[in-house]
């Protein structure tokens, strides 16, 4: 089985972001970037399938500006076999990303596509589902367990009411939730080895996809700030505050 994993480079999830005062966006200059956490779980899942003898090749793709190859190198160090960087300097919408990935899928013909369930910057949670539609594959999003049996996948996914298990025929697409696994930290020799693994660079403009955004971003603003409250000294004061709130609530 051949697996394609798509990974995104984002502002590191531990960084407290700052909105630019002019409303044009979020400050990214000089901010630590890393692989989107959910994508790491997708890479780990692919590597585990390879280690279990269920997959023989893992191709990792990322789309972004120059410098995005660092997240591909991370995936190669974790155990992916080769990388493809689709280079684009401009900001791309999720539909455009999905279309570019669909072009790579058409070339690579993977049996399984793995992605993170969402990116922690735009929080869109679109690309996997879109790519599944564009490549006409069944999807299992928010996966917390993947079992492969020949050409069938059994995926347990985290849904609002609890969990459900889906059966999907390959080729299929799965997006990873945090509970899927614990991503490894690649040891230094693997990091060194990653540099010698093949990494192809393609220009997004050459893939025959219109890169023009559909939506206009008018403004990016910080959320309303909360005013700091008070500290109470006793349980009875706390209980009285709770009672006051409850009495104020309008019954629905």
């Amino acid at each position: 089985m051949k697996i394609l994993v798509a990974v995104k480079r984002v502002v590191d999830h531990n960084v407290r972001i700052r909105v630019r005062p002019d409303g044009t966006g979020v400050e990214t200059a000089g901010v630590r970037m890393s692989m989107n956490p959910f994508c790491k779980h997708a890479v780990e899942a692919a590597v585990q399938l390879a280690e279990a003898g269920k997959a023989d090749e893992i191709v990792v793709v990322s789309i972004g500006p120059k410098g995005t190859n660092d997240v591909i190198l991370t995936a190669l160090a974790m155990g992916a076999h080769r990388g493809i960087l689709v280079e684009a300097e401009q900001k791309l919408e999720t539909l455009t990303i999905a279309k570019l990935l669909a072009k790579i899928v058409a070339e690579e013909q993977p049996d399984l596509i793995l992605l993170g369930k969402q990116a922690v910057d735009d929080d869109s949670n679109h690309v996997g589902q879109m790519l599944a539609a564009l490549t006409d594959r069944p999807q299992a999003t928010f996966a917390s367990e993947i079992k492969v049996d020949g050409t069938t996948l059994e995926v347990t996914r985290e849904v609002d009411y609890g969990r459900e298990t889906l059966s999907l025929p390959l080729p299929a697409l799965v997006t990873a939730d945090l509970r899927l696994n614990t991503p490894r930290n690649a040891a230094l020799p693997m990091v060194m080895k990653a540099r010698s693994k093949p990494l192809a660079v393609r220009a997004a403009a050459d893939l025959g996809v219109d890169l023009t955004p559909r939506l206009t971003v008018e403004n990016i603003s910080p959320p309303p700030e909360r005013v700091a409250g008070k500290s109470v000294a006793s349980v009875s004061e706390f209980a009285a505050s709770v009672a006051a709130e409850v009495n104020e609530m309008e019954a629905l």
Partner: protein
Amino acid sequence: MSVLLLAEHDNGKLSPATARLVAAASQLGPVDLLVVAEEPAAIAEAASTLSNVRKVLVAKGPETADSLASTLERCAKSYQFVSANASTVGKDVIPRLAAKLDIQPVTDIVAIAAPNRFTRPIYAGNALETVTDPQPLHLLTFRASAFRPVAAGAAAPVETLDNSVTSVARLLAAHRTESDIPDLSTAQIVIGGGVSVGSAAGFQLIEKLGKTLGAAVGATRAAVDAGYAPNDWQIGQTGKIIAPDLYIAIGISGALQHLAGIQGAKKIFAINTDPEAPLMKLADVALVGDLFEIIPQLIAELEKLGVTKPTG
């Protein structure tokens, strides 16, 4: 400018989120509710009594993402807006539909400035993005907790659709977390427990406090990962987004990803041994102390005060 809204339901019941979604959708135009389920009749009947609903369309059929997207695709051409909840169902199906129809969707909307201007949180709610959508068809999901529910109204007409779609993915098993606790994403009061609650048995103490207040119960990811609480209790960037009138956080540090889920809370109360915990600094009312000592006392005090259970 009419709106098709996919009704949210679970286990044969219309979800309370639907009344909130109708409120959001009716800011855009007349709303037709679409109910897709294996057994849709009871859900459709409940849906037809929500005010602001022009009609209810009922399709009997599979509820997997690929089949739902096909059903919606067949209905989409008569509408300017096709919308759903920003729940696991809406997240699954709206982007899939969007790619089929070549439309860039706008999802997780928390405010509607105009029928083509929407605000949504990004970076785990640490920024709000407002976009204009010039496309002829708008594909949207709404964050239900950001909208007040519509009331019950006169019964809307119900129409049955022919829905002969098949599903490639097959549902093998569904595991519901059974409880009589109110729905987390629409409850008026939520009690959240952190990893410091220490065990599933510890969470029974949290539930007991919840029962006293008629509240929903949630947990941090750390508590869920430790196996103390089921995953669908998780509040945060990767869990549920809540907007109760009152959120009581017990032994929760207040990590960015947790805060992302509670920004809509009107009031936040916190109990923690560490006065320096980020959530304690943010809380409207903070009490320093050990949760295992405080909660039993708190339950007793509340009972003494005769705090009434709100119905939400």
